[in-house]
């Protein structure tokens, strides 16, 4: 079945260029101990029909930056600078009433914990209908209910006309996540942000949800941002990857580039600290030493230098004193990295890869 797109849903496809454009985004939270810069100078863009994957540890700013896109930060307790353009509309500094018209309509978000994100006292059908009615003031109650059933059916919930009157706790984890997705997509948004959509789910359910997200994206031609720490999910879902560390973008490029030829030691560390089901059993598991830095007192120079095991290969004390710029990686278009290493590709192929994937290193030789 197909969903007829409601007329009031924004259709900003006439705007040229990427649908979402984030430029030099900085999010600061003033605290008692001083300002915490959770996101610093972040720029990226997503086109309609494309998927951007954002990876990084907790505290790297991946959720904070997407919440800024959704306008979910309280203006009283946060300072946002830079520019976020959604289909030609500038979001930074937009009034709350106008923001409310966009949120859930032109853009929507799927959260990690569906049980916490759904209201326990209201029937899921009523919650879905509310999301619909909010942006369709003329719609009757019956329209809302019909739409809710339609969406539950679309996300693959069996017997949607009966399940629509159930409460959130009566659904299993995977079904609950489907309800969340239905709620996110009920107004046919052009931008969907999925914040760790499958982290709490079993692998089989995760595969179902990822299939569903991909089908829906194809159908609605929406731009999708998927935030996760699972590089496998990134590999199968995303077109482009943004690696974040301590609030900054440290590497950006196509998924293939980032996951097969990464040029930043933090990306190497992420790859080497995750075992793979298909890897050789001789592959070593090499953790990133230490802990993520405090954003209250970020390290000088490159924020990754206290944990970087390749900093001795950089001449002088550049890593300690100077923040590397986001520069194009060796000879590949669209691949950006933030690192002082002069020959990262060589180091990756000759030193890192033989340890973490001996079979792959043989092949490339």
């Amino acid at each position, binding site marked *: 079945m197909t969903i007829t797109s409601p007329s009031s849903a924004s259709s900003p496809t006439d705007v040229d260029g990427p649908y979402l454009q984030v430029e030099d985004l900085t999010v600061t939270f003033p605290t008692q101990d001083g300002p915490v810069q959770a996101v610093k100078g972040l720029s990226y863009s997503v086109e309609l029909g494309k998927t951007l994957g954002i990876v990084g540890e907790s505290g790297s700013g991946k959720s904070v930056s997407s919440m800024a896109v959704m306008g979910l930060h309280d203006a009283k307790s946060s300072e946002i600078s830079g520019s976020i353009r959604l289909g030609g509309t500038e979001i930074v500094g937009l009034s709350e009433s106008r923001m409310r018209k966009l949120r859930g309509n032109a853009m929507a978000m799927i959260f990690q914990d569906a049980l916490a994100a759904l209201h326990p006292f209201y029937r899921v059908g009523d919650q879905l209908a509310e999301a619909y009615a909010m942006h369709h003031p003329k719609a009757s109650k019956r329209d809302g209910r019909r739409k809710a059933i339609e969406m539950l059916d679309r996300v693959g919930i069996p017997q949607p006309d009966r399940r629509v009157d159930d409460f959130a706790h009566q659904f299993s984890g995977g079904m609950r996540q489907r309800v969340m997705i239905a709620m996110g997509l009920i107004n046919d948004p052009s931008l969907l942000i999925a914040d760790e959509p499958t982290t709490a789910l079993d692998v089989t359910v995760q595969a179902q949800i990822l299939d569903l997200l991909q089908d829906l994206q194809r159908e609605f031609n929406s731009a999708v941002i998927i935030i996760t720490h699972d590089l496998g999910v990134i590999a199968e879902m995303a077109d482009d990857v943004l690696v974040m560390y301590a609030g900054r973008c440290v590497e950006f490029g196509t998924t293939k580039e980032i996951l097969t030829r990464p040029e930043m030691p933090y990306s190497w560390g992420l790859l080497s*600290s995750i075992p793979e089901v298909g890897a050789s*059993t*001789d592959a*070593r598991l090499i*953790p990133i030493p230490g802990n993520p830095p405090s954003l209250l007192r970020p390290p000088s120079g490159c924020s990754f230098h206290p944990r970087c095991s390749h900093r001795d290969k950089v001449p002088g004390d550049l890593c300690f004193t100077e923040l590397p710029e986001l520069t194009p990686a060796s000879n590949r278009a669209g691949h950006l990295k933030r690192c002082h290493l002069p020959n990262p590709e060589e180091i990756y192929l000759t030193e890192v890869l033989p340890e973490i994937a001996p079979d792959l290193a043989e092949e490339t030789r």
Partner: protein
Amino acid sequence: MSQDPNAKVGIDASEIGANAAETGERDLSHHAPDVVDDHEVVKAPLDFHELAELGHAATALNPLAEPIISVDNLKMYFPVKSSGLIRRTVGHVQAVDGVSFEVPRGGSLGLVGESGCGKSTTGRLITRLYKPTGGSMMFEGKDLAKLSNSEMRPLRRDVQMIFQDPYTSLNPRHTVGTIVGSPLAVHKIVPKDKILPRVQELLEVVGLNPEHYNRYPNEFSGGQRQRIGIARALTLNPKLLVADEPVSALDVSIQAQVVNLLQDLQREFDIAFLFIAHDLAVVRHFCPEVAVMYLGKIVEIGDRDTIYGHAHHPYTQALLSAVPDVKQAAIGGRRERIRLEGDVPSPINPPSGCRFRTRCQFAQEICAKVEPPLLQIGQRHKVACHFAGELGAHPATPVTTDLLGVDDQGTPVPGATPTNKQLTIPGYEDTWYDLKSKHTTGV
């Protein structure tokens, strides 16, 4: 202040710089609450080659190791009570229904499966947090399933547990020293004044600063808290550790640190692990042997290469195909996968015959009638399926008919005698049933 460990040793609290809250000298400019790095003493070297040396490859299998625990036909049924004044038992949740396996001494067995398949219950049965409904667990010549709580107590030191969530498994009102040291006090193993040195030794073993024994858990990061949980489990020199999802609550970059630490400890102290996790990749790295559970039963068990390379059960194959693979980035798009429809059925009223049949694409009549036995089909490989075969090569007729004395539809053949004798043996036999020749063969 009698509980203050410093009072005994005669150290001024301010000397160790730790318990600032107790001495009333907390100075935020020195001890910012978000600085967690100084809790760790064993600083990893920052040279990549040294760092790589510290990382471990996947643990290898020792096929000659004797079993340390031998679990036979273990069952756990939780009663379901009716509502109302007289709470009658109206049914049972068959959380674990007849599992048999062995954990080799100093080795590790991985237990994988979806949530609700009974893997955590199995772990809790082995540590005797639950008393099993049936079956036996032979550990050092004693059956843990039959022991009373008081008989169990001296054995508890040999079987310890690491929990999933380091935020809820540590008491926030106890210091790290109390948490790690209390097993020593409970079991009265060392005199009270020897507890502190042992605690400090343990903290050092897991890579934490031993001087921080009287800090509270909230001052530590997630990975460091999990180290505290590991130190507590190690306190009594256990022979068997049940690790229930020990890394799944941790950040990606920290997971590898903890997995490497567990591998170090296993080598150093010769500890056997029952490693419960839903992350198939971590289990593959840590465990040379893996058991796959579905709805309270083991459906396939075998060594790493067999399970991950030549799985014969449709459920194992579906699980493996669902794992997203980083290598897919080189090819692009999604991997071909086996789609499992629907959810796991209720363990209160599980399907008849094979429990997986409601979601299995190969299911036929026999699957509903006869339960497939966990049949040994290789030197270290057992599978419970009527149509066991490698992916894409499942046989058209049931392989188990001769053994069970039934025809292809699962109806008993009059006069036929079931020949299968190896239904619930915890370990492996020297002879097994070869699927190709349909005869018992050996090494």
